[in-house]
Structures are given as C-alpha cells and as structure tokens.
C-alpha cells in the first residue's frame, strides 16, 4: 500500500538518527560517543534468558591456556 510521504520522511529521519548513533557508539571516545553507546546498548539488550537457543558454551565465555594450545599443536594432547 502506498505510504504517506510525511510518514516516510519521518521514518527516514529516525533511521538516519539510529545510524548516526551507531556510528558514534562505535567511536566510543567523546562524551557524545559514550552517550550514544549507552543508548544503543539500552535499546538493543535482550535478557540472556530470552535466548531460546541458549548454550553454556556461549554463556561460559571461556578461553584456552596458551601452553595447552602449544602442546595440542605439537600433537602431545588430544
């Protein structure tokens, strides 16, 4: 259905503002950047419990031991 020109322009302005905030949020240096990051963060955060394919591998956020990786690379461990 054809959309009202005024509404479309409003949506365009709002989308452009979002992109501008995302850009400043990515700089993350000045007070303004940080304000944008804060707002973007608030607007996009979803509670982890609402992740219906949640996986402990993601939640645990674990890494590796560098010496263990060395040994693994040398074929000394499985």
């Amino acid at each position, binding site marked *: *259905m054809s959309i009202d020109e005024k509404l479309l322009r409003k949506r365009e302005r709002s989308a452009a503002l979002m992109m501008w905030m995302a850009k400043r949020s990515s700089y993350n240096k000045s007070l303004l950047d940080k304000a944008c990051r804060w707002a973007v963060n608030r607007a*996009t955060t979803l509670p982890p419990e609402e992740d219906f394919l949640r996986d402990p591998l993601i939640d645990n956020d674990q*890494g590796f031991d560098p010496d263990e990786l060395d040994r693994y690379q040398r074929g000394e461990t499985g």
Partner: protein
Amino acid sequence: MPAAPPFDPQAIADAKFEEREVRPGVTTKRTICQTCDIACSVVAEVEKGRVVKIRSSDNPIFRDNICMKGIMAPKGLADPTRILQPLKRVGKRGSGEWEKVSWDEAISDIGQRLKAIIAKHGPEAWAVSTSQWNTATDHGLGRRIMNHVGSPNWISGVALCAGNTAAVNRFTYGWFPMGDFANTKCIVLMGHNPRRHSWTPMYNFIRQAQARGAKLIVTDPRRSSSAERADIWLPLKAGSDAAMMLGWLKVILDEELYDKKFVENWTIGFDDLRKRVDEYPLERVAKLTGCDPEMIAKAARMYATEGPSIIPWTPITDMQRNSTSGIRLQSILRSVCGYVDVPGGERLEGFNPDIINESTIEMHHVLSDAQKAKQLGSDQHPAFTYRGQEAFREPTKRVYGQEYANLIMGCHMATPSATFRAMAGQGPYPVKAFFFLGNNPLMSYANMPLIIDAMMNQDLIVAHEHFMTPSAQLADYILPGDSWLERPWLMDSFGWMSSVRPSEKAMEPPGECKSTFEFWKLLAGALDKPELVPWDRLEDFYDYRLEKTGMTFDQLVKKTDIYFAPPKFRQYEKKGFATPSGKVELKSSILEELGFDPLPYFREDPPVDPEYPLKLFTGVREDGFFQTGHRHIPEMRKRHPEPLLFVSPGTATQYHLAEDEWVEVENEMGKISIKVAIKDAMPDDLIRIPHGWWKPEMKQGAGHLSGALKYADAQLCRDDADYLDREQGIPHLKGVPCRINKVEQSEQSVAPASAMEPAE
C-alpha cells in the same frame, strides 16, 4: 529504537564501555571472525603470542554475535594436522606421496607450468575456484591477475549461495539489497533458519525485531526453530518457493495491497506480470506447494500490510530448479509493495565512495570481449556470467559510478558444471590448470563424480589450504594458508553494503603459512606481472584502498569498528535504478534479450520415478561446521560425530528404519552412507542430508578421499537439465528424488569401525 531515555551525563562518562578488563599478560585485538561467511566483529584475547580466547565485541551493535565455531577457532587452527609448509606431489596424482618444498621452489615451478599450459591451450585453460569469504585477503587480486592473463574461468560456491542472488537481483532493480532489520516490521524467512550457532547476527537481529513487535513469517518444509517462533509457518513442499511467491503476488495484486504510486512511477511490466500471476490462482498454488490456501493468503496479506517488510537473503531459494524465478519473485514482491530503499525495507546501498572497492581492483575491463565470450557455461546459462551481466555496464555507471559491480563476487562467474565438464575433456576447449583457494571443490558443487574426473584430467592443480582436504589430496601443490587470527583484514561486504570494517592481526601465522594476498603477489611475480600487485604488505594495500578516507588502516582501526556514510534513502529518485530502463523491471528486458522468459514462472518437478519415491534436500550446514570444514575439531565432532539423515516418524515406520541405524541413500547419481535420526519436525517423504561430510581421520588419497566417497552429499547432487536452473545453470538441491536402502547387519558393524580408520 525507542526514544532516548533521560540520562545522567556523568554516569555515561564513567560507564565502562571500553574493552572488558583482561587478565595481566593478556592483550586484546578487535577482529572479524572469518570461520564462516557471516563475519562477526569479535575480540581476540592474546597471551604469550597466541590467541587464547574469542569473545563477542564490546560494541553493542555487534553484541552477542558469536557462535561456537568462533569460540573454538584458536584450537581448531592450532590443530596438529594443519599444513604448515608447502607440499609438492611426488607420486601419482592422489597417491598421498608428498615432499616438503620452499615457497620459492613451489611458486617458481607453478609459474612455469602455468605459463606452459597457457602457451599450449590459451589462457582460458586456467580455472580458479574460491571465494573471498574465508580467504579474505584476496580482495579481487585473483580476478585481476586472471583478467590480465586472459582467463574468464573463475568459479565459486557463491554461484549457489548469495553470489547468484546478487546477480539475479540486479535484473529487477540493478543492485542487491540488504534488509533493514533494525526498522522492519515483518521478516520473511524462506527456508532459512538463523540460529545461535549459524548465521548468528541474523538470529540476533530477528530476536531483537520480534522483541519490538515485528512479525515473522517462515516458509519451510521442516518445523525449524525459526518456524516454531513464527507468526505464520507455511510448511511448503521443498523447492516450491517460486510457486509460493506467485501465490502471494496473486493475493497482493487481486486485493490491491501493493504500492500503486511506486508501481506507477517506478516500474515497467506490471500488466505483463499481472497476466502471469493470474496463471497461479490460490488453488493451483496450494497444490504446487502443499499449503493451505487460506494460510498462503494470510501470509501474503501480512507481508503486504504489516510492512515495511523484508525478505532477507536465503540460500534456500538460491539452490532450486526455479532459483532465478524465485529470486526475481522476492525482488518483485519487495518492489510492488514499495519496500525498496526505504527504512525498514531493503536498502540499495551502493559502493562506499571513500573506499577503492574490489570490483575496481579486479579490473574486468582489461579482459577482452573475445575472452569474456569464452567464459564456460555462458552460452547456455548466462545469468551470472559476463554475457548475462553485460547490459548492466552502462546503467551501473550511471547510478553507481562504475561499469562493473561484482556484488558478492557473483556477477561475472563461469558456471561450475560447465567448467568441470571442460576440465574433464567434455567442453568446448580444454581446461588443464586448476587452482583452488580456501575451497574444497570436490564436495562443494553438484556431480562429484564429474569433478573427480575433471581433477584427474588436469596437468596442474594448486591448493591454498589449511588442511589435507579431499580436494587437496588430488593436488600437485598444497600451499599453507594463514587464518583470520593471523592477518589483518578490511571487510567491505563484497560490494553488498557500503560499510567497511577493519580486523586486526592477533598473532603471527604458524610455520610458513601465507595470506591469499601473498599467494597472488608471488604468483603475479612468477607470471612476470609483478606490477599487478605492487604493494609490499597487506597493510600498504589497505592504506591505498583507504586513501580517500584520509586515514591509514592503522588509524581506521583506532578510530572505529565500522566505517560508513550516513544512509540515504530512495536514491533512485535522483538517478533511477541501475537497469536498462532506469526503472524496476518487473518484466526483465535483459532476460528477454538473452532469450529467456522475462517474467517469473514455476517449472514443476519431472514425473516421479517409482525407483526413487522419496525426496531429499541438502545444502544444510550443521551448527558445528561451516560447509566442509571443521570436522577435525574434537569438540565439534563430539556434537556431530556422524552424518545424520533426518527422517519423519511416518517415513521411518514405512521404511522400517530405526534410530541410529546406518543406511544408504541412493539416487541416479550415486549413494552415500548415513545414520538415521528420526525427527518429528520433518514432513513425511522428505529427508534431510547434511552438507559436506568427510572424516579427516580416515584414509587419504584417490579411492578413499578421507571418507568423502562414502559420505559426501555432492555425490547425490545432480546437474542434468531437469535439475538445473535454466538461466543460471545451478543445481536443484531442494527436493531430489532418492531412496533409502537398508544395509545388512554385518555392514552395519563394519561401517562405524572403518569410519574411525586412522589416516595414513
């Protein structure tokens, strides 16, 4: 995004939005994961010169974009079987006998042999198979060298996944759009199923959109996890996407739910489209798709009235007999509903004007018309070849400032099947040298038996690889490739989007592993064309590409995770669309000129052969793997120890199949061994075959190929005329006739034991 909440400036100034704190001795690098083709922005933690952890970005716009493949990458890339030195074949092809050589020796011999092949058979006798998703630092340099040498025969898996979508989208409005997930009100997933561990950013986008009230429509024969949380799920017959969309259009046009103003001002061919759509009343569409007509109408209404809506790219429609019509129908739906280049719809972003793009680096203009005309497959299936895309040169220059736009690398490709036929000696001319980079071609295209013949018939095969893949086992040279942890990268989405993201190098490559950039630089030198890759280091090349931004690569890394210009909408109002008419071509002038039906249509399945009463679909990736990769990682194999055949309880009963039983799936092309998994989410008579199975621990070399001859789905993928899309020549992977053979108990006990046979 909701209105900004009231805030305390001091709280923001003090907020810890910097990188998370890390343990002493650990540094961080902002990188882009290149384990699959999604390119998540992530953080690499480095300790003692090694990447020890991959975690998701601190930047909220990339938050949670991480999956288990990214997390396991430091271990997967430290695997003891990784190839760290160039290998040269010393026995017969496929004998598994190799000697270690230096890069200098290898490249010098490769250069001489390639020059001799070109001198004898012409430059078109050299074919390359790759894509830039994982090799990353190619940046079009491979095409640049091929264009200067004179070969048009570049093939890629993007021929049936995203690259072809980009090329076919151009027929309608001249570019490949990107859905605006952040503002959309309705998302349509056509068989696509983004998950926590697959297409993860899309999974997160969809969750966010649904959390703010967007609708979700899923068309999928299976009850996928996306289908389970959809507002409408249409369980259509596999491969009937185009018929479904013709049905949607019928409803949208009949009920006048389309954007009349846009259609009137910006499209051509509406009346012809309407006549074609009238051939598909809902009763017929219901029969073709197997879905309830009322539900089809409901979904069509939701798409047209809840908008702006998006139909994000889906690999499913890319891999069907009616792929061209299906992709065209998606673009036509977007257009008639007025969703093109508007917020919440599908943006035509164009190139980023500040960056030297890869299409420019490729220098397609230097390849002569005579050589372009030799591109394999372009005579019969021209859609994504030079011939099929030629008419875009002028309009693309008018709208996007340059003649060639090789979006997602998919707009100037040879067709894979025609290339393998020529390699096997069945083409219009011989192809005798075959290079593949970060690619396992034996298992990545249809008709694996043909590809084996093609490779066995080569004079020179060069692989740039991490591991001894089944394809690498047939090479003359295997050159060790670096990984995404070990190189910088400048990600420009292959022309699809106008944003650019930098990725930092996090550690040194092990052994003698080199980047694709270095590979092409060395090869250019060996072909006496060093001027084609004049930059000493990758970073110098990036500085050159970024010159107009006023920043070096290092400065860009320091400044931001992502670089983009402010978005502009409805750009077509200034320059029109990049099509010959300047309008959205509902009836494609280019397809008509090429001798094809200019309107979308639906070609039905050939009659059922009673020998093969079931249908299979393949091309599906499992969470732990990307395409044919990652079977060497113990944690991934623990999750997916064997290839699993998904079958409905009804079909299992009908064919007396038990859970965990080994069976054979067979069709006219070949057969594979696979283990049964009974899933009530599967419809009757349709089975699912996972993509890309081989087992690195199994016996290598010709006749074995590490289990690829036993498990690889490419052995079931046909490429005869009934199973190819007419316009593109890509295979139908969604609904291929097959049968299930029971195997004797004795074979059952043998199969798992041999599956774990160690490599020799």
